[in-house]
């Protein structure tokens, strides 16, 4: 199930000579697709890093009505099929949608542009940071913060010097997980994007289009690039997790 398909892909990619491989992998259309994919995924993952940490913080530290409901619904993007996510985001963020119409007067189009791709990527990678940071925050002892306060640190200093450093590797792990998910995402992004080359065409859609044209080797080469990058992110995540474990006092 797993090993054979991956080796098949490596073999298929190996039938191309390195120069041919390089040529397809770095063709202008592919390069622009990578840059749209990776830049958007990175920006949205970082954005979710900030807001995800904030959501985790609010859920762990404060009590407010509806907290349980919010805690449960953060996982919605995991449970909602991506095609449905793409469909509803495309409608809500279109020029006459509920949210898109607020931006339209300023000439900002969201659906069917690379901004739409960003919205879809934010949606699908939102739970990762929240769910990685939440348990760590829960275990963190409030005593340390209180000690910092009683020693005269301001709230700001306590946050930057006491709370953030041990959380940082965990936040990065969440960001990396979200990034890896966003890079590979297809279902929601293909619906909300107009899939125009050099504008908002992302790499997974490019693979799909190559396959539709029966250009298997073209699809394989771009697929290889994505696969290798996913593997590298996986390595980075493992590294980040062992880094985070150093702060584990247990």
């Amino acid at each position: 199930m797993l090993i054979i398909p991956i080796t098949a892909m490596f073999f298929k990619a190996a039938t191309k000579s390195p120069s041919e491989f390089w040529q397809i992998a770095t063709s202008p259309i592919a390069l622009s697709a990578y840059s749209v994919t990776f830049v958007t995924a990175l920006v949205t993952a970082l954005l979710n890093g900030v807001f995800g940490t904030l959501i985790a913080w609010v859920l762990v530290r404060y009590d407010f009505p509806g907290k349980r409901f919010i805690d449960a619904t953060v996982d919605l993007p995991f449970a909602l099929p991506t095609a449905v996510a793409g469909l509803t985001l495309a409608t809500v963020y279109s020029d006459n949608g509920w949210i898109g119409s607020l931006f339209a007067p300023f000439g900002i189009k969201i659906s069917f542009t690379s901004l739409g791709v960003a919205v879809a990527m934010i949606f699908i990678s939102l739970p990762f940071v929240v769910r990685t940071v939440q348990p760590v925050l829960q275990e963190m002892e409030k005593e340390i913060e209180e000690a910092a306060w009683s020693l005269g640190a301001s709230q700001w200093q306590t946050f930057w010097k006491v709370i953030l450093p041990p959380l940082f590797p965990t936040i990065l792990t969440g960001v990396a997980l979200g990034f890896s998910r966003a890079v590979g995402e297809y279902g929601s992004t293909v619906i909300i994007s107009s899939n125009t080359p050099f504008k908002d065409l992302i790499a997974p859609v490019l693979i799909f289009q190559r396959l539709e044209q029966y250009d298997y080797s073209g699809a394989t080469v771009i697929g290889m690039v994505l696969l290798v990058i996913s593997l590298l992110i996986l390595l980075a995540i493992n590294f980040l997790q062992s880094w985070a474990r150093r702060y584990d006092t247990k």
Partner: protein
Amino acid sequence: MTLNEEASFSKPHKQKPTKTKSFIPVILIGIALGYLALMLYIPAVNVFYQAFKNGVGPFVSNLTREDFLSAVKLTVLLALIAVPVNTIFGLCAAWAIARHKFPGRTLILSIIDLPFSISPVVAGLMIVLVYGRNGWFGGWLQEHGIKIIFAFPGMLLATAFVSMPFVAREVIPVLEELGSDQEEAAQTLGANSWQTFWRVTLPNIRWGLLYGLILTNARAMGEFGAVSVVSGNIAGKTQSLPLFVEDAYKQYETEAAYSAAVILALLAVVTLVLKGILERKTGIKSTKTH
């Protein structure tokens, strides 16, 4: 002992949240809720609004369409096969990893996680490369008249591939925490390995297993990317429910797309509710990100 001590220590602290700067929590909660509303809640409400804005009539008539019904049937069938297969595989893998120390154990662990980090489109592409007409097994399959790509078996492979890791992932930590003492005790008392599994191991891991099952099912029914690469998307034949949603939307049948989307959204709601119940029962939190 230490746990109790910790609990009694931290209790008095919990009762005194800083009241002096109470506007900061309000602002932070406001930002968090605003972000979630923009990204999650408004789009989620929109699914139901769009489906029912012209009343229940169009919704019902969309649900009785031929191609819709066949998409539902296909999706259910995919899940009915992929979920049990992945459960058995997941249990075997979890048991092998949690109960045995062997070289390359961590490597196997990361390999099991691969379907999560690989793009679904790349997963579909791999299946095409192996089973497609020019693929490794393509020639042999064609000689024997077996069609995998652009047919049900391919969709099943794609579904099983992307939903593979969930059960193993949820069961491994439970098994590791459990330890093998009880199993060994059962065996010294004369139980064979089958009895040990059914009477000792399974009852202990049942919540973790159920949790994994729910996640597997949600992914199996909702998968779009991998399935769409291998299916060929023929309406009424190889179109699962998520594919139906996208296809209807592309054909400007927005209403039909939303009617189907509601069904899938309800599936997501059921998944979340069951997950919530299980989490409260067991105290486990999603281990998905480990």
